[in-house]
């Protein structure tokens, strides 16, 4: 159980919005940052700022040590055996683009196929569309049911000798569904197909063990895990990363350069061209320390209780329909209100200090599946409590009164 006041660790939460205490429920978009993370950035720029991997001077060595130390922390956080399997990127979007370009694109021939699912974020659709368009390959979509659960029994029959890659989210950002990712990976591997798992909505809510999942690639964004924007992680199995070509060329990703020939650096540096987001990486390490101190099991339990309570209370309101009723969900409560557009819900709730997201959540195909333009989405994080849920529910009721 979480038995201390988490909210007071987050300065942004301590303010009034439109005269009301802020209730921040847009955590699937981005989480707020604890003092520890903000101070890590501050300290880095005040005391350590220097470029990494190249200076013989003390500051550069300190910066390098802290940056690489985060790599070790991320490897432990994901349960990877080898920190060389951890590549720093800007976020999950860049991680997917990296894999699409450096791993999948060279494999693709005309009429080949890539499989994704019906409930992907645009970031796990568009990179595949781009390379499929270029190589005249096809994108196939694993369907879902009305509850927002993938029909994984269909996956086996969708796979054929043309299937070159599979990419799927671990947790859906618009529905909250926790997908049976181990099972999906097992089916992929049984058919000798490699798979990327988009964990952007997973790592902050449930314990993730890449060894148990056995995905070939796994990625997440730091800013949804209480770390700054502009830093994220791609995990890849070492033997696969070794065989891949670089994604971008530049400094730090090389061993030697002449005009005739360049020898690339080893992984992970091979994929980290240019000066990276050093302060962001260091602060990501601090964010991981912060949540591990609370404990992933505790976080999962706390957020699960909140989500259940919120779902129960919201469902009691006549005229509200929850979108996404999977048996196994994390953090996300999407809903629509009879005769009221989600944007109007969002605006009225904002005037009461309740921050939710209204829109298609970068998942237009999910909206099309349910034949709705958008949903209102509340998403929970470690600092939310039952009081926040009560305010959510009362402001939903108020919205209904306005449009009643």
């Amino acid at each position, binding site marked *: 159980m979480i038995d201390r006041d988490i909210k007071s660790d987050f300065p942004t939460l301590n303010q009034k919005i439109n005269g009301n205490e802020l209730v921040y429920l847009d955590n699937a978009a981005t989480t707020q940052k604890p003092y520890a993370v903000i101070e890590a950035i501050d300290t880095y720029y005040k005391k350590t700022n220097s470029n990494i991997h190249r200076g013989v001077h003390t500051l550069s060595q300190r910066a390098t040590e802290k940056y690489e130390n985060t790599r070790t922390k991320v490897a432990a956080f994901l349960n990877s055996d080898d920190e060389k399997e951890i590549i720093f990127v800007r976020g999950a979007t860049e991680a997917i683009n990296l894999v699409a370009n450096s791993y999948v694109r060279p494999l693709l021939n005309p009429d080949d196929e890539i499989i994704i699912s019906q409930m992907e974020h645009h970031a796990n659709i568009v990179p595949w569309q781009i390379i499929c368009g270029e190589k005249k390959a096809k994108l196939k979509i694993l369907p879902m049911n009305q509850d927002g659960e993938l029909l994984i029994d269909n996956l086996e029959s969708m796979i054929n000798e043309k299937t070159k890659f599979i990419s799927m989210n671990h947790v859906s950002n618009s529905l909250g569904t926790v997908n049976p990712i181990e099972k999906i990976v097992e089916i992929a591997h049984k058919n000798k197909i490699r798979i990327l798992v988009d964990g952007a909505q997973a790592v902050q809510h449930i314990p993730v063990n890449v060894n148990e999942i056995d995905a070939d690639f796994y990625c997440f964004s730091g800013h949804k895990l209480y770390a700054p924007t502009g830093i994220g992680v791609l995990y890849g199995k070492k033997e696969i990363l070794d065989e891949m070509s670089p994604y971008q060329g530049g400094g730090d990703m090389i061993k030697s350069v002449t005009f005739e020939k360049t020898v690339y650096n080893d992984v992970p540096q091979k994929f980290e061209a240019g000066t990276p987001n050093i302060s962001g990486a260091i602060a990501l390490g601090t964010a991981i320390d912060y949540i591990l101190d609370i404990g992933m099991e505790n976080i999962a339990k706390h957020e699960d209780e909140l989500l259940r309570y919120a779902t129960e209370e919201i469902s009691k309101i006549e005229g509200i329909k929850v979108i996404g009723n999977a048996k196994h969900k994390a953090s996300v409560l999407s809903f629509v209100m009879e005769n009221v557009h989600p944007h*109007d819900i969002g605006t*009225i709730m904002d005037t009461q200090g309740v921050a939710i997201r209204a829109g298609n959540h970068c998942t237009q195909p999910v909206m099309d599946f349910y034949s709705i*333009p958008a949903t209102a989405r509340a998403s929970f994080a470690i600092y939310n409590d039952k009081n926040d849920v009560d305010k959510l529910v009362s402001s939903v009721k108020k919205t209904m009164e306005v449009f009643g």
Partner: protein
Amino acid sequence: MNDWDELYLEVILDHNKNPRNKDELDNFTHEAKGHNPLCGDHISIQLIMDGEEISDVKFTGSGCAISTASASILTEAIKGKNKSEIEQLFGNFHDLVTGSGNKEDLGKLAIFEGVNKYPARVKCATLSWHALMAAIEGKKEASTE
């Protein structure tokens, strides 16, 4: 007094609930669609233009209360007006909802003044206007992006 009262005036709520001229025209001369990709709102405007003058107008589509009410009130405001009058009206309306204009000469459209405090909702209020201008200019589609 609630915080949102300046935005969701009774008249706006009424036009949202009971939109006027929400229908299709059989013999329209001009038609354009407006789409706001951010929120998925779709508004289609059909016109009958008699020379430079608009003799009839109807709209279809779905959207939030602000975009629906704006389309509904637009149909009432522009009937009988000519192209240059409408251009002038849209200019004034746009200034009003973005906070740089005043409500003189806007008649009923002045009720959208509250939108200027909600920058995220300006596109909702102007979606039908963009579709209208596209239709007048003979284009098929308008986007607020």
